[in-house]
């Protein structure tokens, strides 16, 4: 190469080029010169030694090959920019050493100008700054690895250094951050506090301890996050601040957690105060540490009053021993306390509480605290009591009334008994323990085969019509026992009016049915007894009825004999006597026949009877009784009355009873004729109506007259009319009495006419 430029320069400077070259090459620095276009003109020996390039390789633009590819373009760009500007400049870039290692260099370039000011060449040095640069990079790495935003400031507030986190957070480059007042990013709400804190700190110069506070800073995306600022000043020996070191730690999460804890604490307190229970926390020794408001309200005391309070004065005296024993046990064994007891309220009223006290233990299992919760169960207790009572009552009532509850759910097709598990239903229907009774079949199959179809039809009809279900039927248990049931069900409709289920009860009416049966039998026996009683009562009359003609017959017979045995025999007289014998004997026979008809115990039979005739016979039978008591009997029979269907003997007895009754009712009548009027007529509804009207004293209570053992007679059994009614009922007729006091009583009864006789 020919350094003609240099030559001229050094010639002017009176320095030989050789001398200059030696000088430049001995400088322990990399020195170079370049033409105004930027191409290398000269590189000193050290430069060439460092890079390991030959002068031929490096001159011109060859030197750029030694620049680290990362920095090459930036360097060239920068180089061109200062070439253009003509201003000195410097640039940091890595340059390859001969051995391939890159080191950091500070490139500095300055223009050399001639007398006219035109740039004749550029001179420059490359200073090795690798150690510093690496230290700086290390520092930055350290700074970047700090979990926080780091910045250093000059005392005037100019930002010197920021770590990457900071740049990232604020979304600015270091250059942008330099000269940027961080206060811009402080949350407006925190700004006054931050400013006043900084000012306060400024007013106390000399402080060496860091100052710290929390503040919110706006992130690049506009979101504020909480930071903890820790600022430490670096001071000169004279105390003036050289630099500020700032560490901003992101405490958003912690802050939120704290916030959450505060909120939850508040929540907890609110919760504890709002739960309808008395809460307190006791120390390990049992002293009250905390109570919620309800507890204070309940006892009407303050927390201070409650401290060191044993509480024993508010526990119901009856419960105190048990509470003390349980608490003592808990304290001794560390086991939870769980007891129901009564506590006196501020107004003196005792209420039931469920007390639970749990121990809180530390890692070593030592009890640190006791948490006590007293739940007011007074209403519950009463309700429970009530429920228990009502359930007990229900069960007892079911048992006593032999009534079981059932619920037939139509949607699921299942049957449930209630109350569950104790339903009388299971007992009555003979369900085995554990047997599946949920299917309707179980229940329907229990029904007596003769009744089953009818009950099923009834149920189906009620299901379709959504009406009340009601059925009487028999059930047959597996052991053959037959029981009578009276079952009723109420349809339950949903909002849409659809039938959802039947809820009902089934009552075991077996006993009732038996009682009814027994009553029927008793009634029939009573009827017989009463018949016998009537017989006894009538026996005198009856005997008279028979004996009267017999006496006549016997007397006539004796007379006849005497007339025949007289001397001479009086035949005419004897014939007269004999004729009377025949007549009276026939009379006696008639009487006997009537009595036999009346009292023969033939089985009840239904035959067509002429009711007029039948009553007429009874009237005839009573003729003597009637005459004896001065009663006149008039019959008004409807001639065209069709026959009725009935039992002759029973209906005769009915008529006899009613007539005797009528006769006796007039015993006390002295001021008017004693009359009995008997009417028979046809009544609408295809029945015969018979009325027996007397002129007696009348009945005070005609309806009661038919009750058994009701009698207005001093010696009456009170059975007569009851029997009459049962006879009439057996005949599907009706019997009633109407009476007005003082003007007699009318007994009326109806009997169905023989079918087919309707006109």
């Amino acid at each position, binding site marked *: 190469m020919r350094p003609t430029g240099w030559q001229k320069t050094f010639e002017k400077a009176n320095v030989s080029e050789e001398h200059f070259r030696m000088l430049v090459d001995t400088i322990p620095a990399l020195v170079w010169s370049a033409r105004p276009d930027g191409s290398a003109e000269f590189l000193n020996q050290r430069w060439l030694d460092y890079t390991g390039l030959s002068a031929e390789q490096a001159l011109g633009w060859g030197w750029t090959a030694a620049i680290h590819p990362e920095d090459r373009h930036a360097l060239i760009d920068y180089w061109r920019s200062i070439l253009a500007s003509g201003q000195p400049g410097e640039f940091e870039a890595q340059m390859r050493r001969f051995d391939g290692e890159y080191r950091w260099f500070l490139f500095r370039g300055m223009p050399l100008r001639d007398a006219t000011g035109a740039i004749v060449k550029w001179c420059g040095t490359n200073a090795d700054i690798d150690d510093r640069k690496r230290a700086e990079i290390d520092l930055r790495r350290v700074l970047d690895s700090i979990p926080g935003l780091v910045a250093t400031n000059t005392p005037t507030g100019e930002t010197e250094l920021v770590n990457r986190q900071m740049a990232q957070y604020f979304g600015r480059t270091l250059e942008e951050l330099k000269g940027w007042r961080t206060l811009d990013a402080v949350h407006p709400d925190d700004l006054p506090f931050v400013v006043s804190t900084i000012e306060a700190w400024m007013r106390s110069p000399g402080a060496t301890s860091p100052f710290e506070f929390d503040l919110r800073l706006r992130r690049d995306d506009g979101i504020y996050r909480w930071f903890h600022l820790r600022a430490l000043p670096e001071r000169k020996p004279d105390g003036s601040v050289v630099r500020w070191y700032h560490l901003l730690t992101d405490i958003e999460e912690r802050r939120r957690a704290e916030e959450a804890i505060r909120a939850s604490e508040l929540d907890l307190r609110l919760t504890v105060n709002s739960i309808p229970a008395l809460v307190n926390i006791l120390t390990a020794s049992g002293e009250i540490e905390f109570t919620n408001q309800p507890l204070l309200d309940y006892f009407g005391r303050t927390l201070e009053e409650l401290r060191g309070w044993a509480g024993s004065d508010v526990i119901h005296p009856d419960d105190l021993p048990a509470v003390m024993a349980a608490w003592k046990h808990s304290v001794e064994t560390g086991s939870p306390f769980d007891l129901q007891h009564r506590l006196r309220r501020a107004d003196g009223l005792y209420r039931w509480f469920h007390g639970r006290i749990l121990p809180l233990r530390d890692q070593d299992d030592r009890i640190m605290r006791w948490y006590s919760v007293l739940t007011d169960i007074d209403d519950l207790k009463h309700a429970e009591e009530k429920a228990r009572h009502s359930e007990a009552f229900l069960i007892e009532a079911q048992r006593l009334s032999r009534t079981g509850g059932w619920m037939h759910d139509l949607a699921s097709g299942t049957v449930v008994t209630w109350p569950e598990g104790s339903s009388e239903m299971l007992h009555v229907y003979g369900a085995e323990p554990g047997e599946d009774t949920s299917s309707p079949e179980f229940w329907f199959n229990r029904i007596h085969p003769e009744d089953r179809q009818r009950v099923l039809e009834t149920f189906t009809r009620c299901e379709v019509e959504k009406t009340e279900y009601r059925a009487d039927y028999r059930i047959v248990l597996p052991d053959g026992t037959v029981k009578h049931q009276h079952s009723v069900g109420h349809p339950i409709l949903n909002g849409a009016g659809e039938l959802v289920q039947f809820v009902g009860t089934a009552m075991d009416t077996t006993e009732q049915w038996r009682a009814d049966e027994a009553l029927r039998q008793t009634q029939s026996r009573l009827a017989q007894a009463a018949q016998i009683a009537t017989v006894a009562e009538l026996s005198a009359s009856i005997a008279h009825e028979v004996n009267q003609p017999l006496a006549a017959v016997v007397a006539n017979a*004796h007379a006849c004999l005497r007339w025949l045995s007289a001397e001479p025999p*009086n035949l005419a007289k004897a014939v007269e006597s004999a004729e009377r014998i025949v007549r009276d004997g026939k009379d006696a026979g008639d009487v006997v026949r009537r009595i036999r008809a009346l009292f023969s115990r033939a089985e009840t039979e239904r035959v067509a009877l002429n009711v007029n005739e039948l009553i007429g016979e009874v009237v005839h039978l009573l003729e003597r009784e009637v005459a004896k008591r001065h009663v006149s009997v008039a019959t008004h029979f409807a001639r065209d009355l069709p026959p009725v269907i009935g039992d002759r003997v029973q209906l005769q007895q009915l008529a006899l009873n009613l007539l005797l009754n009528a006769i006796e009712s007039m015993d006390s009548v002295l001021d008017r004729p004693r009359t009995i009027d008997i009417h028979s007529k046809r009544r609408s509804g295809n029945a015969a109506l018979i009325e027996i009207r007397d002129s007696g004293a009348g009945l005070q209570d005609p309806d009661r007259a038919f009750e058994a053992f009701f009698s207005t007679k001093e010696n009456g059994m009170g059975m007569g009319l009851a029997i009459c009614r049962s006879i009439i009922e057996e005949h599907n007729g009706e019997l009633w009495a109407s009476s007005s006091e003082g003007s007699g009583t009318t007994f009326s009864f109806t009997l169905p006419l023989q079918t087919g006789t309707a006109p």
Partner: protein
Amino acid sequence: MNGESVVVFVVDDDPRVREALSDLLSSMGLRVVVFGAARDFLDYEKPDAPACLVLDLELPDISGLELQRELAANGPPIVFITGHGDVRSSVRAMKAGAIEFLSKPFGDEELLRAIEAAVALDRAARQKRSELVELQRHYDLLTPREREVLPFVVSGFLNKQTAAGLGTSEITIGVHRGQIMRKMAARSLAELVRMADKFGVAKPE
């Protein structure tokens, strides 16, 4: 039956019985008068003859027992007849002096025996009644003083004792005594005592 005209009254409300008994008693040669009711019998003018009453216990107006009570000693002896055979009524009737209590039907001998007994009783009663009437007639002849003396005499007092008791002389008493014996038609003191007994003379005080 003796020749004396005996009357049998029959009260029965049953015409058949009345007819039959009337016929039967007639065939026995007895005079019979029948009544359908007690009132008719009471109203009937009865002849002065030994009689008996065949009475039905059950009568429509006045019952047999009521009639018996009403008649008491003045009526003829009663033979009750009844169609009931009622024990209680029969006891009451017998206690009240009924001769017999016959249950219908009864035989002619039964009836006849009862009627005879009743008639005999009535005859005796009638006898007693006529004796008393006779005695009364004699007694009515006595002066008041003689009626005073009579109890002493029949009680066996001596004349002297009687005179002392009545404050008079023994001779006066002797005269009264003779008058009494004569007026009373007593043949002996013993007869007078019997008469006084029948008549019911009170003992002296």
